[in-house]
């Protein structure tokens, strides 16, 4: 089975380790050999998105160095995979050497569902999750990586899971990184609209290819009544009928 280098985004490492842990469990169950370079920190996206490209550039170069020898890199985040794959070259400017390095870095990086469905050609990971679930299409995974069907294919194979489409599932949840705190009122209004659609769909869980969307939606859901809970895609796929979600 494939040898995989784990790319664990900084916020997953620090705030939502369970998203990374669930991904590890699924990949190991499928027989993948995993390695985790411990020098990794952040891909630089927060600085890049905020316009601080001079601060993001060394982090991108650093990331490219750390993952230079990896054959296949898998991340539990469509957004961070997008940063490396699509936005790194923007940082190179006129530095041709850096551009080559950054472009090379992106070619082997996959988002988790993308890796399972497109690279491993696996849709049934043997999971069990008897709940009504709606998929929220995270913007970067959907529009930058073109992942619409991949997470759904995985979810459709989960025993007991009822996949429900909520209204405007492709609409941004309003997270957007620093935007969520800089323009919190807009971010929250966007989140409210998303939550209204989820509540209307009558689901137990909302899942996504990006834990960061769920961090935002979960924070908003935590402030209001209702039963919709956030759960990252790999956390669903990690659950098995014999309760095999434990480490």
């Amino acid at each position, binding site marked *: 089975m494939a040898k995989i280098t784990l790319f*664990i985004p*900084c916020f997953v*490492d*620090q*705030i*939502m*380790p*369970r998203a*990374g842990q669930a991904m*590890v469990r699924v990949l190991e169950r499928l027989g993948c050999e995993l390695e*985790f370079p*411990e*020098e990794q*920190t*952040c891909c*630089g996206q*927060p*600085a*890049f*998105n*905020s*316009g*601080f*490209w001079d*601060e*993001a550039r*060394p*982090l991108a170069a*650093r990331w490219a160095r750390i993952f230079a020898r990896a054959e296949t890199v898998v991340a539990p985040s469509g957004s961070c995979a997008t940063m490396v794959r699509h*936005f790194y070259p*923007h940082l190179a400017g006129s530095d041709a050497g850096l551009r080559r390095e950054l472009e090379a870095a992106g070619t082997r990086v996959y988002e988790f569902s993308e890796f399972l469905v497109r690279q491993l050609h696996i849709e049934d990971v043997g999971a069990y999750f008897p709940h009504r679930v709606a998929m929220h299409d995270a*913007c970067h995974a959907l*529009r930058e990586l073109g992942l619409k069907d991949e997470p759904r294919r995985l979810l459709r194979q989960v025993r007991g899971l009822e996949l429900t489409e909520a209204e405007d599932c*492709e*609409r*941004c949840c*309003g997270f*957007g*990184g620093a*935007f*969520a*705190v*800089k323009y*919190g*009122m*807009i*971010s*929250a*209004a*966007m*989140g409210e*609209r998303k939550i209204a659609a989820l509540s209307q769909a009558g689901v137990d869980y909302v899942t996504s290819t990006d834990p960061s969307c769920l*961090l*935002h939606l*979960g*924070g*908003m859901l*935590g*402030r209001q009544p209702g039963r919709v809970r956030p759960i990252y895609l790999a956390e669903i796929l990690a659950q098995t009928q014999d309760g095999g979600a434990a*480490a």
Partner: protein
Amino acid sequence: MNAARQFEQDARRIAVDVPLHQVLKKNLATYQHAAGLGRERFADWNAARAQAHAVKAEAIAHLDRYLLEFERNLTARGGRVFWAETAAEARDYILALARRRQVRQVVKSKSMVSEEVHLTPALEAAGIATLETDLGEYIVQLRNEPPFHIVTPAMHLRREHVAALFHEKLGLPESVHEPEALVAAARAEMRRRFLAAEMGITGANFLIADAGLVAVTENEGNARLSAALPRIHVVLTGIEKILPRLRDLALFWPLLATAGTGQAVTCYNSLIGGPRQENESDGPEEMHVVLLDNGRGELAADPEQRDILHCIRCGACLNICPIFETVGGHGYGTTYQGPIGAVLTPHLRGPRFAHLAQASSLCGACTSVCPVEIDLHPHLLQLRRDSSRRRPWREQAAFRAFGWLAGDGKRFEKLGRRGRRWLRYAQSLAAPSSRLDPLRPWTRYRAAPELPPESFRDWWRKRKNPAATNDAGAKAAHS
């Protein structure tokens, strides 16, 4: 108040305006649905977009050549071209012309450039009665408001709003609510003014270089009346509207109609090539085309962002934008709203509008629907980059600190653990979203995330090597 503060204040108010959001949600969904159906009529929508992108790229790359060709061809038929470097020059030219010709009444069809140069207030101040004849524009003019949306200026209003407005301003009975009756009332008022006006002002959707023609797209017939009935026709438009060849319209007319309203083509498309010719029985005596630069020339010289000038003002990026739906057209405080407004306005009006690029989640929906493939959200990123050194020092320092923190794995791990511990402690003391809550910018609108004692890397290390649980892991588990 500066533009950024004003935007924040307005956004805070409008973001919770539930009745407005209901209207917008319905209207925007209608346009998106129609545009979706329209796109399906194309054998290959994306190929059409790529083709349109290539044509506009060529036009903008040779802007000078095509504009001169347009001027040559139009002036050969007696049209006049005025090159306005600034908004004031455009305004002054039209104002001086109106005065010289003793114009007392002007009819106007839709032109966002006229909004950009604040033409109507200038004409009104000079005692020249100026009437908007596009129904939506007419409505917002009666309300004394700027257009809410570049294509559908009264998108924020319900039929009842219009009924109340016409009751108040036109003396229509309060009971009249039917769209037909409301339209008829507006039409009666407009016809009178069309016949009386000495000058008609229109915009232009396209300027055709090889034919010297002005192409005007509309659905109400008011633009062709504005262009044909008064004795003077003035076209006010931006230099970026140029298309090299007449045959390009075979692509751009359906492209614009589809992306904007989902129509195959709009109800009326006029090609205007000059004033009344010797053998013609009607049409204006004079035709003037005012070509506005106002920052566009400089943008055309910027290889990174000049595709912003490809914009054909279809409104598709506004219709799909969740920010637009949240803050509404008036929230932007600019002539051009939505994603295109956010990327264009800093080039037209300077860096004091750089904040608009920040007010985005970078979802990229705009880029995905743009019919001329403008890199809208990458431009938002570039504008953020361009304004980064003008940001508050605290923000700059924070990102420098972040760069330092993430520049070393051990440092990141150590300070990350301390940070989580400190935040958990602070959270235990301060009420969520209170002034003392260090996570207040987040918790103001959301519950705080539960910070785990153990990071992913702690877990990974422990799992790989359960016997030698290191100090860090042990400390983490106890904190």
